């Protein structure tokens, strides 16, 4: 499965780069994260609860950052397994300076899924993953602002995350929205 997308962050390349290395911030962006910690240089371990439609369960795995070219590009490799199946992905992240203090993040990658996640969750995974990523970006946006503000004010940042419940509700809304925007549904509604 291919994943790709982009998002503009209100911050410099360096700020965005640092943001993505802050495990505390990342954990807030992905509700259901039970654990996210660095276990070596550029190697992180995470435990996350994942729900894709009828498939739910705990994933554990690691995330490795490589090919670093500060502050522009890096490669991210994830490898996770759990009761719902397995997930393996490699993606490239490109950060480009927009010239107005904001940074455009582009990502492209290839994800393999297996087990229940593939067999039962496949039909939903595209929408669910997009919803998760978009929600995560929204939270990261807020936390980037907070991070910069706290830095400027010389205080500890207070990061906000979404609750697992709110998060799931948005995923569900996006799922239904995805279905209702299909062309054949429009036709049916028209009838």
């Amino acid at each position, binding site marked *: 499965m291919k994943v790709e997308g982009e998002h503009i962050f209100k911050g410099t390349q360096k700020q965005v780069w640092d943001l993505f290395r802050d495990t505390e911030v990342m954990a807030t962006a992905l509700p259901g994260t039970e654990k996210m910690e660095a276990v070596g240089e550029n190697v992180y371990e995470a435990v996350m609860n994942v729900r894709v439609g009828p498939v739910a369960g705990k994933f554990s795995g690691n995330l490795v950052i490589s090919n670093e070219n500060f502050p522009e590009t890096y490669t991210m490799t994830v490898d996770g397994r759990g009761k719902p199946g*397995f997930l393996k992905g490699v993606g490239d992240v490109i950060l480009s300076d927009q010239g107005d203090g904001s940074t455009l993040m582009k990502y492209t990658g290839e994800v393999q899924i*297996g087990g*229940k996640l*593939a*067999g*039962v969750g496949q039909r939903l995974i595209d929408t669910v993953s997009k919803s998760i990523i978009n929600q995560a970006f929204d939270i990261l946006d807020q936390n980037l602002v907070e991070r910069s503000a706290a830095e400027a004010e010389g205080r500890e940042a207070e990061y906000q995350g979404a609750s697992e419940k709110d998060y799931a509700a948005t995923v569900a809304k996006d799922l239904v929205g995805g279905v209702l925007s299909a*062309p*054949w549904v429009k036709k049916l509604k028209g009838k």
Partner: protein
Amino acid sequence: MTYKVIGKRVKRVEDPRLLTGQALFVGDVSLPGMLYAAFFRSDYAHAKVISIDISQALEIPGVVGVYTAEDMGDDWEPGPPLVSPPPTLENVVFNSRRQVPLVKGKVKHAGEIIAVVIAESRYIAEDAAEEILVEFEPLPAVVDLEKCLEPGSVLVHDDLDTNLAAHLIQNKGDYEGARKEADLVISRRFHLDRGAAAALENRGIVADWDEKNQHLTVWDATQSPIPIRNGLAARLGLRTHQVRVVAPFVGGGFGPKIMMFYAEEMVLPWISMKLGKPIKWIEDRRENFYATTQEREQIHDVEMALSKEGHILGIKQKFIHDTGAFNPYGLTTPLNTQSHSMGGYDVQNYYSDLTVVFTNKTIVTPVRGAGRPQGIYIVERMLDIAARELELDPMEVRRLNFIPPDAFPYDHEIIDQAFATLIFDSGNYEPAFDKALEMLGYEDFIKNEQPRLRAEGKYVGIGIVPFVETTGVGPYEGARVSVEPSGKISAATGVGTQGQSHMTAFAQVIAEQLGVEVSDVSMVTGDTAEFHWGTGTFASRGAVVAGNAVNAAAGDVRLKVLKLASKILETPEEELVLEDGMVRVADKPDQSISLGELALLANPLRGAVEPGTEPGLESTKYFGPAFGATAFGVHGMILEVDPETMMINIRKYITVEDCGTMINPLVVEGQIHGGVSMGIGNAYYEKLHYDENAQLLNASLADYLIPGSTEMPHIEVHHANTPAPNNELGTKGVGEAGAIPVPAVFAQALENALHDYDLEILETPLSPNRLYELLQKKEDNS
């Protein structure tokens, strides 16, 4: 021959139990002290197993044991070879690799079993299975039928230096010579993909080792209890009389419940013997999608040479068949494709090159149709294309090429799935074909209705496809028929029943011979304690092979009845009639004796049974045909396509079916309806989607869509009758027939409906999505 009971629409004797929830399925078996199994299966399709940690699973209260391959020691061995390669062909390559009870070393398809948990309840067993920790080293998966043969490809079986499972060539006449004479040579490439049998009942096993009796009873949702009994005895070091396999009511078979020797069938009886306890496992739907066999993935390169009048001069094909990770069932399925790629046509020159490959997908064994739908699809598609190129009526081209009625028995000079020469025993194709055209109103549709509807902007199309089905193959089946002192009849045969109405149809055959009511016959099928010679229910052979064995046994009992009654009534046998459970003197109704009384007299408590005779009114007989009985049929359909959604509306569906003598037309119609529904699934809804890692992406009935009541049309069935000449009943099989031509009918009708697009369909299954894609591609190219 005029029959009294055979050929009647008799209500089924098995129904009251099924309708009231009183019928025993494997899932209903409950024994004192029974334990439950759950499996840890690999999510990966191809991976090395580095380590297995069962310690956490063992700590869960209620868990009795966890077993891995290592625990089986010397008892671990792959399943038995079920069907060897054909011994009569030269230069056959056949690499046999059979499924294993528990994975050792390397996983070869997703769903293979790494460990078994035995616990006090299924819930606990499943909980514990989730606590098993296995470290895998994932490997690239072998998926593509062609790339897997390229040098350097990843190998499914490391001990083979290739993914080639088999290769063989069958040849008749001289294709290359015929090609030179041809006015038209067309060649096309076809992609045929996988589907599931998806019986409503998943598989299930209850294994019960009785230590004191030294006896193993296995209830198994199988189509073939006898081979399973024989195999289990051999593997477990038991005598055959120490093992009883019962296939009680089975909730649909459709092929995959064949004598596969599934991993679960091997491992659960073994554990029951270790623990001395009954163990139950009922497959869940997701397991069914990974661990139960599937079928139909093939790539064909086909060439057809024709005269300008439309005569087929020859067919050449080279095809690759995907057998999945193992090939326990040998070459049965692709041999069927080879046997059916000439359809019911007189083809003098035929060259068929078959390659079978291993991939990291679920194992392939026959699914209703078993290679035949692919063969029919190929030949019928080629004829449609040829007719277009030659500007001939596609129906005329078919009529022109049918094997004529005086050419039977027709020798195809190749071998079939049973390794016998492919001989079509009988047939009368043209009248049946004409009947189908008439039922569908072909001429009127083409001349009047279709132009009118097209003018209204409707996309309506017609498809008509004739097909043959080789049925009723050997080796043999047997039956025992016995008159009880009550006058009722008890009978048994080895084939199991999965909805085919055996208990009624065979009872009709017995009732016909012995002059009793159908309800007086109690028929046991699929219990090795009752009958233990035979193979099983497959290849549309129940009514033909077991049916004729039942007929032979009942006929022999009839002779015994007549002989004894003649003595007692002091009347010559030819003057006796059997009716209403009595033997009567033909014109003297008061001179009679009941079957029950005769049964008592035949089994005296004093005196001696005369030398050379046997006690009782009982007989066991066998039937083994030298070659099968070939059925014929035609399916036709008029459908409408919504050009925006690609959803279809089947306006009319007709079938003409020639399965020879019908024992029970109601049952035959039911078989056809069910076959068509599976065929419609195969044609337009059902496809197993594997990704490039051999992960199945639609492993639930919410994602893998089998036709529901609103997808099914009303089907009009007409029966033609060309009795099979080589069996006494004249029966031909019909169990698989309904499914065979449907994808070809769909392709023809869809092309016809979407004539604006000039579409050529060279694949199956289709779906609304896929059809949309094909049309988009067509538009993009033009």
